């Protein structure tokens, strides 16, 4: 009896040492910009909250990523010697954003929007917003936004021409990702889609309806090829499942057969 009690104590004793699991989520350390401006009222504090909901925050691009300065030293955070740039003037905004998005900057300058820069034309933040920077998508082309400057008619035609292509790119991207996490070598397809997507993105700042339509048609042909390649893999996986189903059924039948044979000997 004593031995049994000792066994129970030995097995249960470790429970006494249990402690709650430590929090494991890793959070990015806040920069001094956010520490100071986060607690400031109105104009000086508002950008922080707006930034928190932005695509930049989602990807770890903080204040200093655009405005420069030293995010670790509160005293010199806004020192020009530490690279602080401050807020750009309106006509400098595209070049300001273009430091990280050179391709988009080039497309924008070539578009009617870009050509009107400094003459009342829109800049990046007109559509993408500043601080609460919104991810580039066709949803940005909407009546409410576009009619601030002009009618929606032409913008709608462009959006309609592009929306089907975007949906296909998103769909194919999802299918490639699914195959990738099941061991399929998707490197070639991933690169092809990356190239097609980049080509498609150049249309985002184009306002020439015919060019958008023609380019969308050409891009869709490329997507057809990717679709066909994915279908081959889909068909192969479907065939595997059929063979697998037959193999499993055969194994179950064998199990039943051996069991019945054994019964005859009992």
């Amino acid at each position, binding site marked *: 009896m004593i031995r049994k009690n000792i*066994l*129970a104590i030995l097995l249960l004793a470790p429970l006494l040492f249990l402690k709650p*699991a430590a929090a*494991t989520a890793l959070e990015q350390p806040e920069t001094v910009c956010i520490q100071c401006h986060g607690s400031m009222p109105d104009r000086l504090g508002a950008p922080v909250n707006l930034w928190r909901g932005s695509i930049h925050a989602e990807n770890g691009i903080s204040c200093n990523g655009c405005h420069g300065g030293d995010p670790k030293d509160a005293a010199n955070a806004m020192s020009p010697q530490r690279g602080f740039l401050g807020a750009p003037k309106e006509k400098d905004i595209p070049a300001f954003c273009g430091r990280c998005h050179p391709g988009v900057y080039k497309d924008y300058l070539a578009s009617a929007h870009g050509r009107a820069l400094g003459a009342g034309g829109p800049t990046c933040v007109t559509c993408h917003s500043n601080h609460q920077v919104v991810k580039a998508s066709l949803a940005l082309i909407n009546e409410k936004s576009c009619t601030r400057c002009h009618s929606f008619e032409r913008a709608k035609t462009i959006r309609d021409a592009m929306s089907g292509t975007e949906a296909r790119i998103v769909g194919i991207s999802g299918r490639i990702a699914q195959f*990738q*996490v099941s061991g*399929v070598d998707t490197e070639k397809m991933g690169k092809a889609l990356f190239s097609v997507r980049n080509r498609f993105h150049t249309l985002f700042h184009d306002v020439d309806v015919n060019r958008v339509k023609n380019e969308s048609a050409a891009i869709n042909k490329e997507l057809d090829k990717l679709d066909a390649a994915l279908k081959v893999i889909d068909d192969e996986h479907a065939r595997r499942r059929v063979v697998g189903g037959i193999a499993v059924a055969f194994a*179950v039948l064998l199990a039943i057969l051996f069991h019945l044979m054994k019964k005859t000997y009992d």
Partner: protein
Amino acid sequence: MLNRLYRWLDLRYGIGEIAEKELTGYLLPRNINEWYSLGSVLLVIFAIQVVTGMLLMIYYVPDADKAFKSVSFIMNEVPFGWFIRLCHAVGSNMMVAVLLLHMFSTLMMGSYKAPRELNWVTGFTLFALVQGISLTGYLAPWSQLSFWATTVATNSVSAIPVLGPTLVEFLRGGKLVGPATLGRFFALHAAVLPVVIAALIGAHLFFLKRTGISAPPFGKDETANPFEAREYHYQGHPGGIPFFPNYALQDLSSISIYFAVFLAVVFFWPNMPFTPDAFVPADPFKTPAHIKPEWYFLANYQTLKIFPSELLGLSVQAAAMTFLALLPFIDRSPERHPLKRPLFLTLVIAGILLWIALSVWGHLS
């Protein structure tokens, strides 16, 4: 033709006599149950692991620069390579699962008791070695999952006082997991451990043959262990059922059920042994957010996390493993029926529930 071949062999080697002794004349207890066939299932799994492992070695390159690509080549270019790799990966998980069931049945039926202490010890060592061969094989694809799971696993050894850091460096072949780690883990996985496991399986079967198979404690009035430590005695079962064809058919039935489950996983749940990080090449500069060990290490992983120090966590695990390994020498009571051993039954159920709870906790944490 077959008859002529049999006669030819029998005249020279007396195979009829061996068949009579080991198959038709090998009698088993009449109340033997399905749980006893798990040993045969495990032999089949081990054979599948060896064969698929050999086939994988034809194309696998144990070099940090080439390992990931070679596994991807096997999965995508080699005919049926995907099938062989999945059988190997799923098989390793199934082997641990079936081993756990085999040990559970041995525990519940008290089959570890005298004179079968060494059957249990070799079996338990086999369980530890199978976990070891799984861990070393985990690094082989050189994926993010492999790299970081191995980093975490080898790092836990550093909690051992004094020798810890040296041991970690010895295991890794350097300060960090790298090409040298892959080399030594591959050697362990493909050469050392399979041979040791095969030898221990031989010892396990040798002990089984010398002690005789234990009768289940169910369906009998007298359930105490009949062993008396006076002189060697083979526990036969006069009037029992022959191994062949009776129990061989049960073995075949259990093996077929295993194949049904195994193939269902391979064909319909092929991602079971993997996480998305398993398909990203290892990157020592990019730590994935949620690296978790395989399901059978989750309880160990969580235990390390919940104790105030890793050393305490390791010590508790070492104590629990030692306790289980030496169970036949600690639990010497003759009773074998689980319902007549309420404290033992309570501890087993509590232990299993604790293991499940820690595993779930480890998975969710």
